[in-house]
């Protein structure tokens, strides 16, 4: 099946795309919504501009749609993006990285239904520990690009999502009930390499910020190697 993968730049959207490839489907294009609103209801924003590099690394075309990121209005922009991707690449389905968000999943399902497309969310209600372990063992290289919940602080910004990260998150999950995969927006990630990338992204320069319990790792310079 020819699939369009919604791409935020984070681990969930790229792992979901990988799962489709693993089960015999073709990712015909990535679809990214660039929100001008950092508080976007639907769309992940840290380093969203770098999905261009991820698409190039994978050798997969990218459809970009800008949005003001206002609640519900951004859904119209998502629908336009999906329509553009579907027409340009003759898509039969869409894959999302939704794990638990009914808000996100149901809105994408509605658009796919209207556009007569299949909708796949292979991470839906997954075992989050098993998912993070697979992400690491399958060869994804992921860094933490934002933290938005205690006790995650500035020391977490830019660190790799590896086994040591997983062990630390398991302890935090036990004590604070923070989602292991960051599904509640506790942290955001950025993927530098994936098993289906032909090149990896090297971060040359980045700026970090941390204020009132939230912080970001903003990549200012990166290249493909």
């Amino acid at each position, binding site marked *: 099946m020819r699939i369009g993968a919604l791409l935020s730049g984070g681990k969930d959207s790229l792992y979901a795309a990988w799962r489709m490839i693993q089960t015999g489907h073709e990712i015909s294009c990535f679809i990214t919504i660039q929100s001008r609103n950092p508080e976007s209801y639907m769309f992940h924003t840290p380093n969203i501009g770098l999905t261009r590099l991820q698409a190039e690394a994978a050798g997969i075309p990218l459809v970009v749609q800008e949005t003001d990121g206002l609640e519900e209005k951004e859904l119209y922009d998502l629908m336009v993006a999906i329509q553009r991707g579907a027409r340009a690449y003759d898509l039969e389905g869409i894959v999302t990285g939704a794990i638990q968000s*009914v808000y996100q999943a149901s809105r994408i*399902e509605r658009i796919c239904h209207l556009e007569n497309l299949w909708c796949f969310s*292979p*991470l839906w209600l997954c*075992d989050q520990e098993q998912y993070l372990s697979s992400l690491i063992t399958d060869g994804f290289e992921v860094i933490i690009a934002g933290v938005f919940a205690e006790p995650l602080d500035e020391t977490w910004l830019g660190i790799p999502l590896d086994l040591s990260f997983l062990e630390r998150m398991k302890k935090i999950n036990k004590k604070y009930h923070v989602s292991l995969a960051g599904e509640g927006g506790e942290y955001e990630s950025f993927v530098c390499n994936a098993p289906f990338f032909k090149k990896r992204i090297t971060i040359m320069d980045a700026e970090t910020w941390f204020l009132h319990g939230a912080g970001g790792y903003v990549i200012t310079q990166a290249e493909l190697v």
Partner: protein
Amino acid sequence: MMLILDITNPDLPVLIDEFVSPISRIVHRFGHETRIVRIESATIHSSCTGIIICGTALADSWYRSHHLIPLLNGWTGPILGICAGMQMLLSETGGEIVPCTEIGMTPIYLTEMGRQDILMNEREEFSGYALHQYTATLSSQWIPLALSGSTAQVVKHTTHPWYGVLFHPEVRNEWIIERFVALSVSSHT
């Protein structure tokens, strides 16, 4: 052992991740063993305490050209049909599949019979995650336990401990699966 019946399109094994594995994990979490089988090759072993027929994707209509009845012949133990699983149960016991699209959280309230039923009691009103293009009409063998508007969201067979849930209980309503597991264990012992 709970039999988890997979009715997703066999050409799309990725659907198992989304519609079958989460059910199996929930049953495991409630301390019960599971066996996941495809509908075409399913057999019921003596160790089976109950059967959960999982749902599938909104665009998947593969299940509509397949049948449960050969498998269920002679089985009078507990069954929980979820979404497409409920549609199969109802349509093969005198009902008819009809268009009915619902996507997203939907408010659900119990009927008088629902208030008295072991699966649903003490839950008066709640929201369920709906993801379907069809439902099925109820023959006289079924009674509604919960509704949203005029749509039957939870149904029960009049003779057997067979239930159908049109929404997806694995999303925000795991208590339904927990109660079904408890009911299956108690009816087996």
